[in-house]
């Protein structure tokens, strides 16, 4: 559709409020395709004096959930991404199906900072319930695209207003009533694209890719984008300074969420049995996995190289994971905190009975109803010793979507090598939000099934003792059910056994077994991914963090350096048990800040347990636990304040 065509469409909107609001006026359509240079903006009809911000701003889209804005937000995000500008997208949504407020944050940042930033530069307000508050919270100099039918009260002098007649524009697309709610979202994509100078050709490709299955749907959506664009071009005067300019910083990169990345990792890890129970925010791990497996793990004869079972609850899900792991499958489940609570008994059995399995925990805030859609790193303490008795669990801590993929693969190897459940601790921010990433690399190492004896090996060995520490690493040998040898079978139980897996209540047998399990946990240190060090390694201040806090920590270090000349080293944990690198890092620094997204400093406490008392006193907590992804500013302010007080 041409711009002229758009004009014809508009001609059927007789009572459009031309020039009715200061910042709005119809303009010559010939000007529609380019944004004005921010410097050249006339301030005559505005009291806002915009500072030009190229590729460094945050857009907040305020909608109600169930309005179908996800596609639009994703298109907008990718539109910026395809122009080579680093972006991140964060969905701040309620635990509800339809009608409650939802905000989607798109941060574009030329330096590659992708953590959440509280400072919003452009608001797209489509929720009449929150519009007043959303505008009130805008910082001075911010801009707001909003539905012109909203009553927005007294206008702020320090905010740019872009009223848009959404309903009329949607009507002009000719969309049927039932899809108008969805099409409305595409209109704001067009308006934003025009104001921000997002490449329309690229945007069209993305829209057509998104709706590739139905050309008519793609056409309709694209028409809505165009109408939004043309409306902005003809009727809105650009008064903010936000501009997207092409860069080359996203070449070859992908956008994906952590749950899909975990799912992909699990498939390439060769997972064979999956048992799960739906729970936010982990659900899409298995839903995405089902999609991948149906496509890539069904053989020519239609038979599956996997079994995926939706269990009756998380107890059963974990029970099936253990049964399958015992039976020789690569088994996994995905869940969140409440599910972890229910899995506690089986997790302990898995530790004592020495059964491999992978549990992906996409962490969220506390139990029951409340904030299941808000992020936290709050299951560290619980999982580290999940279940009764002396238990210790291996935890892997992905810090990016790429690591979600890589550690998911790693987890299956570690679980089978150690013969124990392995937990991957992701969180809602990492799991459900859109992240830019380098493409994932195909696993180099072949699958490692650990110490499994087959019939031939049993015949050669002449004996088999399931719980005997043959190699001195605490890891015994196992056999799989079905191994066709009279000596292959053994009796699996929790505690109360000797090396030969025979029933025993002898104190010596129990103690020896527990000591061997402790040795095995030491061996785990040689198998888990090592922490990642950033910095010179010679600074006085060290930061320890993990998981989705990573982007905020990276950005904060930059802020600290630039704003307060505070140099830091940064160690990003990737696993528990902690490896020697962690002890060394603490020993080398005077002060350590442990950054985490929970109230009580769970990781700091776990570190304290492992460190010498003299070293443990160096650890200070920086915690953020309000349910939104942590911001760099939180860390910067805490460290600046601490250092200021010390001087």
């Amino acid at each position: 559709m041409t711009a002229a065509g758009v004009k014809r469409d508009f001609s059927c909107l007789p009572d459009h409020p031309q020039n009715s609001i200061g910042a709005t006026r119809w303009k010559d359509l010939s000007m529609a395709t380019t944004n004005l240079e921010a410097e050249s903006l006339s301030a005559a009809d505005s009291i806002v004096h915009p500072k030009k911000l190229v590729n460094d701003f945050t857009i907040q889209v305020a909608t109600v959930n169930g309005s179908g804005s996800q596609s639009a937000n994703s298109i907008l995000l990718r539109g910026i991404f395809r122009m080579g500008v680093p972006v991140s997208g964060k969905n701040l949504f309620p635990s509800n199906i339809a009608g409650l407020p939802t905000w989607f944050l798109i941060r574009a940042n030329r330096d590659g900072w992708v953590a959440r930033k509280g400072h919003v530069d452009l608001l797209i307000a489509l929720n009449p319930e929150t519009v007043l508050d959303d505008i009130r919270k805008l910082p001075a100099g911010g801009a707001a695209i909003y539905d012109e039918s909203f009553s927005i009260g007294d206008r702020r002098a320090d905010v740019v207003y872009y009223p848009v007649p959404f309903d009329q524009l949607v009507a002009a697309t000719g969309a049927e009533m039932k899809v108008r709610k969805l099409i409305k979202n595409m209109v704001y994509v067009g308006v934003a694209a025009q104001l921000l100078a997002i490449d329309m050709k690229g945007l069209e490709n993305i829209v057509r890719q998104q709706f590739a299955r139905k050309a008519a749907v793609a056409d309709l959506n694209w028409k809505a984008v165009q109408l939004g664009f043309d409306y902005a071009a003809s009727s809105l005067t650009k008064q903010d300074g936000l501009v997207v300019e092409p860069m080359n910083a996203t070449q070859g990169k992908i956008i994906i969420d952590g749950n899909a990345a975990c799912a992909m990792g699990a498939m390439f890890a060769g997972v064979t049995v999956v048992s799960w129970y739906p729970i936010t925010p982990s659900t899409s791990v298995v839903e995405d996995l089902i999609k991948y497996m149906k496509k890539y793990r069904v053989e020519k004869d239609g038979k599956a190289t996997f079994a995926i079972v939706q269990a009756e609850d998380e107890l059963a899900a974990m029970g099936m994971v253990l049964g399958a792991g015992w039976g020789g499958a690569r088994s996994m489940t995905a869940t969140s905190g409440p599910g972890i609570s229910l899995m506690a008994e089986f997790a302990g059995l898995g530790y004592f009975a020495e059964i491999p399995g992978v549990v992906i925990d996409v962490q969220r805030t506390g139990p029951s109803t409340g904030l299941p859609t808000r992020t936290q790193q709050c299951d560290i303490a619980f999982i580290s010793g999940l279940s009764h008795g002396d238990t210790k669990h291996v935890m892997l801590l992905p810090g990016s979507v790429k690591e979600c993929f890589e550690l998911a693969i790693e987890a299956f190897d570690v679980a089978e090598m150690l013969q124990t459940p392995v937990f991957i601790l992701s969180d809602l921010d990492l799991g459900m939000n859109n992240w830019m990433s380098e493409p994932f690399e195909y696993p180099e190492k072949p699958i490692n099934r650990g110490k499994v004896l087959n019939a031939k090996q049993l015949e050669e060995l002449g004996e088999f003792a399931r719980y005997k520490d043959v190699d001195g690493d605490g890891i015994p040998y196992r056999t799989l059910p079905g191994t066709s040898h009279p000596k292959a079978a053994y009796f699996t139980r929790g505690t109360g056994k000797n090396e030969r897996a025979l029933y025993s209540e002898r104190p010596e047998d129990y103690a020896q077994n527990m000591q061997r399990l402790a040795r095995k946990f030491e061996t785990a240190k040689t198998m888990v991914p090592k922490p990642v060090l950033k910095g010179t390694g010679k600074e006085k201040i060290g930061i320890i963090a993990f998981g989705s806090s990573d982007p905020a920590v990276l950005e904060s270090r930059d802020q600290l350096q630039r704003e307060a000349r505070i140099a830091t080293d940064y160690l990003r944990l990737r696993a528990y048990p902690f490896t020697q690198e962690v002890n060394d890092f603490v020993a080398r620094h005077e002060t350590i800040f442990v950054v985490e997204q929970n109230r009580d400093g769970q990781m700091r406490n776990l570190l304290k347990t492992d460190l010498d008392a003299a070293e443990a006193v160096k650890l200070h907590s920086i915690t953020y636990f309000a349910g939104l992804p942590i911001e760099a500013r939180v860390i910067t302010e805490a460290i600046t304040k601490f250092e200021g007080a010390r001087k």
Partner: protein
Amino acid sequence: MATSPVPSTSARTNQIGLEILDYRGSKSTLCAGCGHNAISERLIEAFYEMGVPPEEVMKMSGIGCSSKSPAYFMSRSFSFNSVHGRMPAVATGALLANKTMRSIGISGDGDTVSIGLGQFMHLLRRNLPIIYIVEDNGVYGLTKGQFSATADIGSKLKTGVVNDMPPIDICALAIQVGATFVGRSFSGDKKQLSTMLKAAIAHKGTVLLDIISPCVTFNDHEGSTKSYKYMKEHDEAVNEAGFIAPFEDIAVEYDHNTTVDVQLHDGSHLRLRKIHEDYAPTSKTGAISMLTEAHDSGEVLTGVFYVNTQGMDFVTRLNMIDEPLSLASEARVRPGPEVLAGLMQELA
């Protein structure tokens, strides 16, 4: 290899050349006279007589006296004594990992219909191919004699405590929810139990056998409805079962008017001679109403109540490759680099 048929020169051997000794377990540590020990004996005989390689059997259990008993039969089979009431999930996972294995679950009344009722229901609903045996004595043995959910109204503990809650009829429940072979027996009825166990081995799908198995220590006194004496007085068989294995001669005459012949999945025949007048082994509703009426009349019905050889079992339903997933090679379970490259392309 032990599982191949080696003709024995001395001791008697089965179809695959194994002796009965090859099916034995460790020495039982249960009380002398415990019904569970008799059930273990019958299991040994049944698996021996059916010529099942012990290495192809997984013995699954939860917690309780009953759940300890897999240690006392078939030591050459793989065994998993899991946690209380959660054996169904573990058994399900194990069968998904290796669908070529046979699974036998040993549970108790507390393990099954008190703490484990939830998982038990879903095992039945899925028609998991397992022989699920409830060694039913109406009390918790390991914690010394509290009532379980199968204790009858009015039955009395040694301490004099009288049960005032209605029992859950495991068989009626199992038929209702989806088990495809359901029966009840008595640990003291050697002939009936042996026949039912062999038929259970031949069936593919959930076999639920509720076996009344008196607890000699906590529930075998006057006033108990799960005692040896009570069972001898109230055991009312609905049918007399005969079993003909695929390797046995089938040409045995039977009366078509009184006997139902059921061909089982492995080609075996189960012949059920009707004793109880309401008996029809393929009717769900008939079986359930028969069981319900028996409660009112104080009879303990035994025998095969329901058989359905048409229901699709859970493992078949999942349409997995023929080879056990546990043995699937890396080439089959890790898609190639071109798949990852394609996925990355879509996300760029």
